[in-house]
């Protein structure tokens, strides 16, 4: 019998993960995204041990939800990142309940959107893709970057951001919209770097 071709398109891979109980598609999916998810979790949580623990939960959840994935609502990367972010925010909220709310300072001081060059556990395999993304993101202004960091990586609503930065809510919304528009203009660059 002829062996079945391995799905290489991420959307096909998600479909295979939903339909196949062998674990092979999940393994391929994990190989494709785990290191990126771990990097995001580390950025959001700042703790390697916690990030590794949540990494497991993220992939179990992705496996569980594979049959519900709808490509019309966003790409596979967006789906993966959304699940990972949601899990990380849960962990941050739990931490806030335990230790008080100083997440903003924690994120800004130790992380932010910048490179990890020099870390021994950074993989070198995807550097061209990540460098292209980061260069594109340099086009965001500091104001745009800070509101997006607070909303996306710390889960703050526009009201909370306004309070934190001492800005009118309307200004926060405008900066988020301007930042998102700027990010959207980078999509063609991002897509080109993905296939290059």
């Amino acid at each position: 019998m002829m062996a079945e071709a391995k799905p290489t398109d991420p959307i096909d891979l998600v479909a295979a993960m939903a339909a196949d109980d062998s674990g092979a598609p999940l393994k391929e999916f994990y190989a494709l995204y785990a290191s990126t998810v771990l990097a995001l979790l580390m950025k959001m949580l700042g703790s390697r041990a916690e990030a590794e623990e949540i990494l497991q939960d993220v992939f179990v959840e992705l496996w569980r939800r594979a049959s519900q994935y709808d490509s019309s609502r966003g790409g596979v990367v967006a789906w993966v990142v959304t699940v990972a972010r949601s899990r990380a925010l849960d962990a941050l909220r739990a931490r806030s309940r335990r230790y008080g709310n100083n997440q903003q300072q924690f994120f800004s001081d130790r992380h932010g959107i910048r490179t990890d060059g020099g870390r021994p556990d950074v993989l070198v395999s995807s550097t061209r893709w990540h460098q292209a993304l980061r260069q594109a993101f340099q086009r965001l202004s500091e104001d745009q970057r800070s509101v997006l960091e607070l909303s996306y990586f710390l889960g703050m609503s526009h009201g909370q951001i306004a309070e934190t930065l001492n800005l009118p809510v309307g200004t926060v919304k405008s900066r988020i919209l301007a930042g998102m528009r700027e990010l959207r203009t980078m999509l063609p660059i991002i897509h080109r770097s993905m296939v290059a």
Partner: protein
Amino acid sequence: MSDEKERAELLAALHAAGAASDEDETELRALLEADPSLEKIVKDFQDSIAALASSFDPLETPPKTFAQIQKKIARERGGFFSRLRSWFSKP
């Protein structure tokens, strides 16, 4: 751009950035139901922010992690609901 589309764009941006309030989410859902073509705006913003979130240098995962994920999945598959589902699906 129409006022409605501009409003949808703002709400989509807040939604994708994770900054939308419950009221914003409800309003966005209503606008999307009225005009499904607005979904493209949401999708583009979602993909854009996802690219930002995946721009950090990838980190090497521990070798045991995948086996631990498989173990959790196996436990879930063998759980009560899974057994119930397979029992009902028997011919």
